[in-house]
């Protein structure tokens, strides 16, 4: 069963067409990697999936769990189980991580008609995840991403992934700017998330993350369309030969 189904997707940003007829199916329980050169449309794909304002769908359809997603508000997509790990997570000064995460968890719980977790339970589960990700639990008291290093921000994104436990995780260059140890920690987090019920769309510029998080399918995105798909070996080939042989 496909969780994500993208058909003939055309997207423009600021009047410029970036995605030009993209097709993609991601089935439950799988990890798909999207690779491609700079400017090929990788981040545009991530943002349009999450419903970021300014990303205009000119043609085509995005289906999530069978529902058409094109005009759905970002928070509704999130509540339906679509998660985006940001390439550059922004700071929200004055709003503590604790308050932010609790608001997120509560709004998802409310949307699912479930009960809200108590503050005590909540703090317990966050601390557990934070420890696994090498984040000092003291970070909960600080403002969202406030004064965080690049690596801390990315680990905070993975923490949110594990805490919110979505159906689809779109990771937008989560590996960029990470040293080797942080990369391993982030990869462990992603591996911990993957299971038979959810799926992952891993957007990356480099092959190295794929050594740690082994994808089921690798796609090459070039000039707004997927030009090649293959198994995990494709990533290795790309690392050796670059993208030029596919795009020329």
């Amino acid at each position: 069963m496909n969780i994500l189904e993208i058909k003939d997707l055309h997207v423009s940003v600021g009047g410029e067409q970036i995605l030009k007829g993209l097709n993609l199916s991601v089935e439950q329980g799988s990890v798909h990697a999207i690779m491609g050169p700079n400017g090929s449309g990788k981040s545009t794909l991530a943002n349009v999936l999450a419903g970021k304002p300014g990303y205009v769908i000119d043609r085509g359809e995005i289906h999530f769990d069978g529902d058409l997603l094109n005009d759905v508000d970002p928070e509704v997509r999130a509540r339906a189980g679509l998660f985006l790990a940001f390439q550059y997570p922004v700071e929200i000064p004055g709003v503590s991580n604790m308050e932010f995460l609790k608001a997120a968890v509560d709004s998802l719980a409310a949307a699912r008609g479930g009960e809200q977790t108590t503050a005590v339970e909540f703090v317990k589960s966050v601390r557990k995840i934070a420890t696994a990700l090498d984040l000092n639990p003291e970070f909960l008291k600080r403002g969202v991403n406030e004064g965080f290093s690049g690596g801390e921000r990315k680990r905070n994104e993975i923490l949110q992934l594990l805490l919110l436990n979505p159906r689809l995780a779109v990771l937008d260059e989560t590996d960029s700017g990470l040293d080797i140890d942080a990369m391993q920690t982030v990869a462990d987090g992603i591996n911990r998330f993957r299971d038979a019920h959810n799926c992952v769309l891993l957007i990356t510029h480099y092959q190295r993350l794929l050594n740690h998080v082994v994808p089921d399918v690798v796609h090459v995105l070039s000039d707004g369309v997927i030009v090649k798909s293959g198994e995990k070996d494709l990533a290795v080939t790309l690392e050796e030969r670059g993208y030029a042989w596919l795009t020329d």
Partner: protein
Amino acid sequence: MPVEDLVPSEYSAGFVTDIESETLPPGLDESVVRFISGKKQEPQWLTDWRLQAYAAWRAMTPPTWAHVHFKPIDFESISYYSAPKNFEDGPTSLDEVDPELLRTYEKLGIPLHEQETLAGVVRQTPNVAVDVVFDSVSITTTFKEKLAEAGVIFCPISEAVQEHPELVQKYLGTVVPQRDNFYAALNSAVFSDGSFVYIPPGVRCPMELSTYFRINAQNTGQFERTLIIADAGSYVSYLEGCTAPMRDENQLHAAVVELVALEDAQIKYSTVQNWYPGDKDGKGGIYNFVTKRGACRGARSKISWTQVETGSAITWKYPSVILRGDDSVGEFYSVALTNNYQQADTGTKMIHLGKNTKSTIISKGISAGKSQNSYRGLVRISPTADGARNYTQCDSLLIGGNSGAHTFPYIENKNLNAIIEHEATTSKVSDEQLFLCQQRGIDAEKAVSMIVNGFCKDVFRELPMEFAVEAGKLLEVSLEGAIG
């Protein structure tokens, strides 16, 4: 949804109470001043004092230096006195209060029945004594007897004039002189009612004191006057709240508040100002032109102003402290939120006269819609104020792309021993921040309210508990529908 999609909020206190009032016809001359004074059966000295103020006011012109724009006010079109009719003889108990009026306060969530709290039923505002001013008169003061046991006087100022004339005469106009400024002079001439507080030496006031101001009548100005005296070594925390009905015309509110802190005394004055701000097109709303000033007269005295300003079409207000006593302390914590077409020009003055005097100013301005929000502050260190210190922090937060934030700090230092620090920041609620919140399932309104509350944290923690909760909710309501 970009941040720009700001739409107006609903004003929940905007209802009108249908009540029979005795209202003076519009216009102001000496006979109006005499009428008000006569109505209150005031002693001659006070009538004369009012007439002096009236004469001074006639010769003055409204200030034009504030960063606000509005059509000149026609002072002849305002009525200077309005009172619910059946108070002619003054209510002696709540049973005599018009039930319609009681319902007004129920709607506003203000308890007028003190027995409910006395009986141990926990309500929203436990242990708060309330004085309520409706249009021009004080309606009721709760917990009077309990306060009297501690020697605390808390009553309408009109009553204090009768019962404690020596205190009123000694302090009235000593902090804000009659001719201090145009609106203060007007208030001195026509002030109708307000609260009077006296805390005797060494007494810690056993409960929070609170006044609730409500403008109801049409085309009426509200000119209340508050006088608080904390005698040596005493302490009082005082809360002030305000609302008004939604009306198409602008209404004038020109109050004067005077605080006096003697040796080792402390006054904490908190305001949650929620006057009607006008509609989304800028029609109607209160002109809030208020003079608030405290005098730290005694050594080691302390006056602390905390204000949360969300209402009014125009706010012109600078709660100040004159630090005369050595080692005295002045504080100003402010949140001013403007939305739609609101304009605020607010801040403080810290006048350092005594040695080792300290002042702290924390100002948070939030501008949304097409509003303009200005901080204006003066820190003056006189040659006598050896070792004076001031710390000022003023932060502005912009929501959307059509609002303005302005800062006008004035620093006048005449003492080389003084230490003065000033920090200022301007930030914006960005589309990126909102999108991050939305992507985590938090809707945009909740996100903005979280961000704004976080921004105001330093000020909210200065508010008494009951008010902190109210203030947080108020910001949420004022921003309601702020995001499309």
